[in-house]
């Protein structure tokens, strides 16, 4: 099977966010594979081990993203592709879709896996957008995946309910938490990853102009929510605290 994973490098979820001049400050920030994409990488490796074939991980980003691609290779992916998008100003999800779409145009694909959402931008658009551009089906928010006879049977989390869906390959699947337990790269895995192929492409290689991938939306401002101040810790006898809390919620906060 030709298995592809689209993945993104994101801030570590431990990071606090700082903004200077309208931009997110990234000096010294720790980066990780977007946690949802990690489920996608793990699932891809398991699919390959079961059905044979090859796992290629693809990211759109800057050269720093090589580190996260190497992590995916160390987990067990076979090949990696880094598509540099530095030339694209004001990129958005449309840009990423266009770039990935151009990359996948001439690829034979059985399945593309990605994360349900990235923990930075949080739009969850790129997966379904890419599937549409490639003319293949998609299922988002998947917590179980099985492939047999050219068909995928998936369980999709729908706001707590579960749908069992059958869909023909090729298909694009986005991973929800619960799909699997991503492995840690082993030491031999890390050693091997260094020698695995990592291809770097730019827009030219994909016959794209900067304008083709220009975003359709534009961020005009970024800001932090007002810092939440620590509130009131109640004291006294527990019964009194409970009484006070209920009355505060009713009269002061007016939420009940």
């Amino acid at each position, binding site marked *: 099977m030709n298995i592809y994973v689209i993945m993104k490098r994101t801030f570590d979820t431990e990071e*606090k966010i700082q903004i200077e001049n309208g931009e997110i400050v990234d000096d010294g920030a720790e980066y990780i594979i977007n946690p949802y994409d990690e489920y996608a990488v793990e699932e891809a490796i398991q699919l390959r081990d079961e059905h044979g074939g090859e796992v290629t991980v693809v990211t759109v980003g800057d050269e720093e993203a090589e580190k996260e691609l190497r992590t995916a290779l160390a987990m067990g992916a076979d090949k990696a592709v880094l598509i540099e998008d530095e030339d694209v100003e004001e990129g*958005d999800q*449309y840009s990423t879709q266009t770039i990935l779409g151009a990359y996948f145009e001439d690829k034979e694909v059985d399945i593309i896996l990605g994360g349900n959402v990235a923990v930075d931008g949080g739009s969850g658009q790129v997966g*379904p957008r890419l599937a549409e551009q490639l003319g293949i089906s998609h*299922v988002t928010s998947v917590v179980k995946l099985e492939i047999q006879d050219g068909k995928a049977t998936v369980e999709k989390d729908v706001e707590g309910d579960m749908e069992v869906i059958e869909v023909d390959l090729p298909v694009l699947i986005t991973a929800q938490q619960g799909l699997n337990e991503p492995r840690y790269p082993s030491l031999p895995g890390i050693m091997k990853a260094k020698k695995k192929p990592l291809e770097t492409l730019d827009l030219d290689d994909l016959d794209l102009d900067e304008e083709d991938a220009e975003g359709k939306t534009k961020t*005009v401002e*970024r800001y932090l929510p007002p810092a939440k101040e620590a*509130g009131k810790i109640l004291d006294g006898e527990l019964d009194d605290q409970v009484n006070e809390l209920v009355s505060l919620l009713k009269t002061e906060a007016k939420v009940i």
Partner: protein
Amino acid sequence: MSKKVLVIGEVRDGDFRNVSFEATAAAREVAADGEVVGVLLGENVSSLANELIYYGADRVLTVESDKLANYTPEGYAQAIQEVVDQEDPDGIILGHTAIGRDVAPKLAARFKSGLVSDAVSLEVAGDEVIFTRPIYSGKAFEKIVVQDGLTFATIRPNNIAALEKDESRSGEVASVQVDITDLKTVIKEVVKNTTSGVDLSEASVIVAGGRGLKDADNFKLLDELAEVLGGAVGASRGACDAEYCDYALQIGQTGKVVTPDLYIAVGISGAIQHVAGMSNSKVIVAINKDPEAEIFQIADYGIVGDLFDVVPKLTEEFKKVLV
């Protein structure tokens, strides 16, 4: 400039989801003195159409088909595409729900347009619509505009106020015929969640439990409290990992991001990943036996104590004042 804006209503178990009315209010704002056209997809949904008009739509189009009884990306995309071809709107607004999240990007790719996902507010400045949306799961926010083309957005439930229901409003309800073909995804089975009916993303009260609950059975305490408050039960990842509850309940950076009026955190330490998902709640109450717990840093009200003592008392007290 007056615009024509489509709003895609969402019906669940025979009723509109509240977010549909919120989306209608958003569409009203984007349309200015233009037209808001409600769109309803499904089987036997036209009887509900007037409801959308009461909440601000000028007229409603219904697309009815047995193939739209359950959501599928292809089915919905075909139906919406047909309506868009007929109406040529300037904007489309949906709820940022399981359906909105799934179909909107597919359509945006088809229309080669931008899409603003998960907007929590919007303002109209001249010709431009400026949307605000959370990034880094609510650790920060961005304001974003659509540069050209369709003003296409999904809005987060529970953030944009619906308009007052006005039953004196009336408008045309028309049906659009769409021949839904070639559905590639087939829904074999739908397994309904067995816990309370209130959806986490739309709940105005959430009672969330953490590892402090110690056991799946103890989540009953939270069910009882949530029931009295008409709220939903959520959880930390700690609780989900420990198998006290389903991952569907997880709140945080890798779970649901919620903004209820009242969030009661029970036996949750307040890790940054959890806080990202709930810190924008209007009022936060923390119950934790550790006075140093991080959660107290962001709580409006805190009780330091053993949850097994506090929660039952709290449930009793709410019962007294709420009935």
